């Protein structure tokens, strides 16, 4: 059995080494794939805070991913066309600066998570799942029918946005940026999990009645977790949009919400680096199975069923021999 602490350090290190090796052997596409792993991992790390610690099975996290993406898309579109964004009396200049875009993405998705959270946390269990799903779909349909930013066709941003001191068009440099953000999010989650807030949130998942009777409000704890979670997933959305230089309503699709949950389960629910393992395996599967057969989704579905029915705790649970938290 492998200690979880080892896995926690080995997985990000492994991802980094693969990217560096790909750089040396001049395989830029492999770097692009590792970047994709880092970004999807980051999105799922966000979801894992709500899901793994708080027990909130959100089937609508694509909403935040998409909002982050559109924050990037809209700002960059206005910068690219040199036309400011006018909202009534408010005139906002577009920007190509990643740090500004990130802040906007984080704030927008946090606000959306607050609104959706306030409504959905009036309920729990299956209601919560269905309501988050429904709100995600609402944003999907809205983005499809709101033609100012391309509607279904999406928005193309011809050049990646800028980060001071870095040429983001070079694959390895952009990977580095995403990797650093992923590591920061992992550190944040680790600290959060051990903090007073994490302790209370974790207890709110397992025994909400207990949390109430010691004088804490479990709904508020979960709401804050949902907001933090949405904000991180939103940041990932902005990066994903930059990776593809393109945003479209498909970033809001409920299949993506489902896939984010899939990433977490493959790696191990509530485990720190579970989402990163999940993202790595998912991207690898997509490319290998996808290369083998057009019908690779059948294989993916079968693998998922196998994980649910026979292996509690995902890859990390298997490696450490310990089942994960119960959500």
């Amino acid at each position: 059995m492998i200690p979880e602490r080892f896995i926690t350090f080995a997985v990000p290190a492994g991802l980094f080494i693969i990217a560096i090796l790909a750089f040396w052997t001049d395989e830029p596409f492999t770097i692009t794939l590792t970047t994709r792993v880092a970004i999807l991992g980051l999105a799922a790390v966000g979801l894992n805070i709500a899901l793994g610690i708080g027990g909130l099975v959100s089937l609508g996290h694509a909403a935040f991913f998409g909002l982050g993406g559109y924050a990037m898309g809209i700002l960059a579109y206005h910068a690219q066309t040199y036309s400011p964004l006018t909202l009534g009396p408010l005139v906002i200049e577009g920007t190509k600066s990643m740090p500004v875009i990130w802040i906007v993405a984080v704030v927008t998705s946090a606000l959306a998570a607050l609104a959706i959270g306030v409504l959905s946390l009036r309920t729990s269990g299956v209601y919560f799942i269905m309501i988050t799903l429904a709100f995600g779909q609402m944003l999907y349909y809205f983005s499809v029918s709101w033609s100012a930013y391309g509607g279904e066709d999406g928005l193309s941003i011809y050049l990646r946005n800028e980060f001071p001191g870095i040429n983001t068009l070079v694959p390895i440099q952009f990977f580095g940026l995403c990797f650093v953000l992923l590591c920061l999010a992992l550190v944040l989650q680790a600290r959060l999990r051990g903090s007073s807030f994490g302790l209370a949130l974790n207890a709110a998942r397992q025994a909400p009645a207990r949390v109430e009777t010691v004088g804490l409000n479990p709904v508020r704890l979960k709401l804050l977790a949902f907001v933090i979670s949405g904000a991180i997933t939103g940041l990932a959305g902005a990066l994903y949009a930059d990776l593809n230089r393109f945003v479209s309503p498909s970033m809001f699709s409920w299949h993506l919400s489902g896939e984010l949950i899939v990433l977490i389960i493959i790696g191990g629910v509530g485990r720190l680096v579970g989402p990163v393992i999940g993202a790595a395996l998912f991207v690898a599967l997509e490319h290998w199975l996808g290369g083998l057969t057009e019908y690779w989704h059948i294989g993916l579905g079968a693998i998922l069923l196998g994980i649910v029915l026979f292996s509690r705790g995902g890859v990390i649970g298997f490696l450490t021999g310990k089942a994960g938290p119960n959500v």
Partner: protein
Amino acid sequence: MIKKLLLSAAIALVGTAAASDVKVGMITTLSGGGAGLGIDVRDGFMLAITQAGRSDIEVIIEDDQRKPDIAVQLSDKMIQSERVDVMTGIIWSNLAMAVVPASTAQGVFYLSPNAGPSALAGRGCHENYFNVAWQNDALHEAAGAYANQASFEKSFILAPNYPAGKDALTGYKRLFDGDLAGEIYTKLGQTDYAAEIAQIRASGADSVFFFLPGGMGISFLKQYAASGVDIPLVGPAFSFDQGILGAVGDAALGVVNTSQWNKDIDNPTNAAFVASFTETYGRLPSLYASQGFDTANLLISAIDVAHPDDADAFRAALMAADFDSTRGDFAFGSNRHPVQNIYAREVVKEGDLVTNRILSVTLENHGDVYAADCTR
């Protein structure tokens, strides 16, 4: 086993050694909704390559699942990892917008076998981007022109609420001289058109123009036929293509639609194409299959003149369009989009088979209005 491995390694070595080979990357939709279109383009394209017996053209085919983000990643892979010379295959305008500008900016040639968004035909055109199908507006404009020829005076027009839908209605209105009885945008992916049909009935229109690709069109046609409304329908070919007609059945009979191709266009290339496609794949070719076939033949004709590494010569060879098209005459306009005839077709029954028959030429040597904006 080891021998086999050595052999394949040797082939691989030879493959990379032969620098004059042309690598073609095809990204198209082979799984999920709308896979039928991608499969037709692929089959048409590969039929042409096989018939030409060209072993110096290597085609790498990938499935974009109709997801723009997947398409972008695949194009990164094609360019960065496979180092292809030419790309092709994309079906949908939104995927094309995600892939084409970035690809052509990296020096790759792109030949579009289906999508023709206006943004890439006008100011956003690129010297390495060639459209072998049509500019998106073309078939809709032809529908408007047909409505004039049929002396329609009051049209009800509808399309899904997304950019291609808006282009469609704009295209129709551009050439249609009559008035509009109503103009509505439906939800993308909508499957129930009872409400819209009720509005059509109440509108007093003498004709209905609709652009509802894929499953949407099937639903609309079936429901329209059942509603008892008998105002004549006009639409672009997308809802009447051979793959879809099978699902619509008799409900489509008599509907006039516009297309740049049909299986009864009378030229030897087309006759041979229809026969060999039917024989090879066991089904009739669609519009999309013909576009894939033409794209491949255009490519072959250009490679015979120059290798894509010699970009200027290759580009000039593409521009010459010196190949036998299934459409008969084929030429590019200044923005590298087709200038071609667009026909009005009627859905008819041939025995048990519901299919299309050409009525007339609606627009002759038709280009597009965006060409003037293309300065590159």
